[in-house]
């Protein structure tokens, strides 16, 4: 989609010889435009819910909330978190926009180190895997990379088949968790955590754990969560489901002899827009706004702005 957007932008901008936008400028504008529209999804989603509650939204094809949540869900990722030393603090992923759910895998079935690296296999010569110890569907986690897979078969007492390749080199540690007894860890504000920990009825327990976001130092912003009760401090038993930021779009090119850049989709750094095709119009308008300011052309800016406003008005 990124090439279509760029061509549209250039077509509008070049129509009256307003100016030329370099690939690096375009990539910057594209990133800003995508982030802007990405954030708008959350506001639009909220507006739509309010409308639903006052019966100003329909169902079926008129169910706009569904479409909005689908786009947001397409940015949903899951990851096991890395523990900060031996503590109840865990580092959050760098690319998270918002943390939706945090889970604690409370039933550790077994752990060990991989003996032999085979594709889609876990081999541990020190183990004696049985179906009662490791039922089918149990979750295997690579402690180092935090990648996960499900147990699909017990090949032998020392070998398991897993759903995806864990890239577990020989000598690397793993843990296997039960797919039952997964607890949601509840987000609690820093304001409340003290009272919660001192509450006789609602203090965090293994059944109802809680976390706070924080971990800032004098030089770095906080990007860790602290889990309560403090006894929850396993190396790889905290998993997070989060909405990540869209990846930075990169319009990549090869330069021909006459100096004109030509789109090159095969480049290793190529990244397309991650928003749906329906947002192409919005992306063009947003980029035109930025480009209009950049090349100091009021008409370009106004065109982008007006188109953008009318689209927003139509959607709200």
């Amino acid at each position, binding site marked *: 989609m990124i090439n279509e957007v760029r061509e549209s932008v250039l077509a509008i901008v070049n129509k009256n010889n307003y100016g030329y936008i370099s690939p690096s400028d375009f990539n910057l504008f594209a990133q800003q435009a995508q982030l802007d529209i990405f954030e708008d999804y959350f506001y639009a989603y909220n507006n739509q*819910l309010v409308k*639903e*509650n006052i019966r100003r939204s329909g169902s079926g094809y008129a169910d706009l909330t569904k479409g909005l949540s689908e786009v947001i869900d397409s940015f949903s990722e899951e990851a096991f978190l890395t523990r900060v030393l031996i503590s109840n603090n865990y580092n959050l992923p760098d690319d998270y926009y918002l943390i939706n759910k945090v889970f604690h895998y409370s039933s550790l079935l077994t752990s060990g180190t991989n003996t032999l690296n085979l594709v889609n296999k876990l081999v541990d010569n020190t183990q004696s895997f049985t179906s*009662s110890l490791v039922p089918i569907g149990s979750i295997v986690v690579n402690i180092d990379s935090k990648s996960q897979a499900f147990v699909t078969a017990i090949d032998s007492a020392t070998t398991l088949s897993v759903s995806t390749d864990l890239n577990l080199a020989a000598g690397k540690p793993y843990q296997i968790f039960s797919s039952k007894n997964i607890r*949601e860890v*509840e987000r*609690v504000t820093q304001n*409340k955590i003290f009272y*919660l920990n001192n*509450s006789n*009825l*609602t203090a965090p*327990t*293994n*059944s*109802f754990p*809680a976390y706070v976001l924080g971990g800032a130092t004098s030089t770095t912003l906080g990007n860790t969560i602290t889990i309560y009760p403090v006894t929850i401090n396993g190396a790889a038993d905290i998993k997070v489901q989060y909405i990540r930021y869209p990846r930075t779009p990169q319009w990549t090119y090869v330069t021909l002899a006459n100096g004109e850049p030509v789109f090159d989709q095969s480049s290793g750094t190529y990244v397309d827009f991650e928003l749906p095709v329906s947002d192409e119009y919005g992306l063009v308008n947003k980029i035109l706004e930025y480009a209009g300011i950049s090349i100091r052309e009021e008409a370009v800016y106004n065109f982008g702005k007006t188109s953008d406003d009318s689209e927003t008005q139509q959607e709200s």
Partner: protein
Amino acid sequence: MAYLNGYQYYNNEGENPTNKNWGSYQYVYLNDIVNNFMLMYVGNHELLNNLNRYQVLFHAKRAIQELNYDAFKEIKALELNVPTTLRFILPPDYVNYVRLSVYRNGYLFPLVENIQINSATSYLQDNNSNVLFDQNGNILQAERSIVDQERINGAKKSIYLNANSPYNGKEGWNIGGCWYFDYQIGARFGLNTETANSNPTFRINNKAGVINFSSGMSEELCVLEYVSDGMEGGDDASVSVNKLFEEFVYSYIKYSILNSKFGVQEYIVNRARKDKSALLRNAKIRLSDIHPGRLLMNLRGQDKWLK
């Protein structure tokens, strides 16, 4: 909690304790209550929104506590030997007692509560009855008061009841199981029928967390029937409530949250309150076990021949 298959129910899949799941189908667990409530009653289109789970957990536990106090018939019984100090330490999950009995010769004899004080704290005093303090200004206390010591020694008078004895109804001392009486001069009047009982008596010291007995209970086997609050010693995973009360617990949580939330219309709060009260009554009736079989058993008693 997921449904159990037969092997899981009867044998707990061979794991100890194998009887863990027996009768578990009668109950719904706290985890399930909180999970179901968050799923069904909290959301963008529900009455309740933007709630923290701990709020739901708090009110769910409060609902279970309230049910344990006055609706459940789940009475716990604890058997303990009463030591020579005549003191029975209350169990850790004790909230209130139902009945206290002494177990003798294969029978349980219910004990009556002594309405008079049978235990007291004693401050140390000098010859002039001045209270004594330590260097920090704290009052010095005796290990045992005279009242306690005499009760433990059996030196305190109590009433002897034995219809076949000439000393029936007279005050005496029970020391080591033997009764001693004053040399009788003249007549005796005014038996306190309220406290007269051949069995030992007790009085619960709630603050101290003990039951103090009269001297006759030394080395006797005591059975305490009591109610708890259902919190299972803080083990959230074990907290459960009978399924007959499940809907009440949801309505209790809903009402409690709506009642304390800002800006909720009064008619919505009232509707939730009525809902809660009606469901409590409904569940109490269900739990009262009024069913034809049991009524029939009682009615059969009307035709009993009396000699």
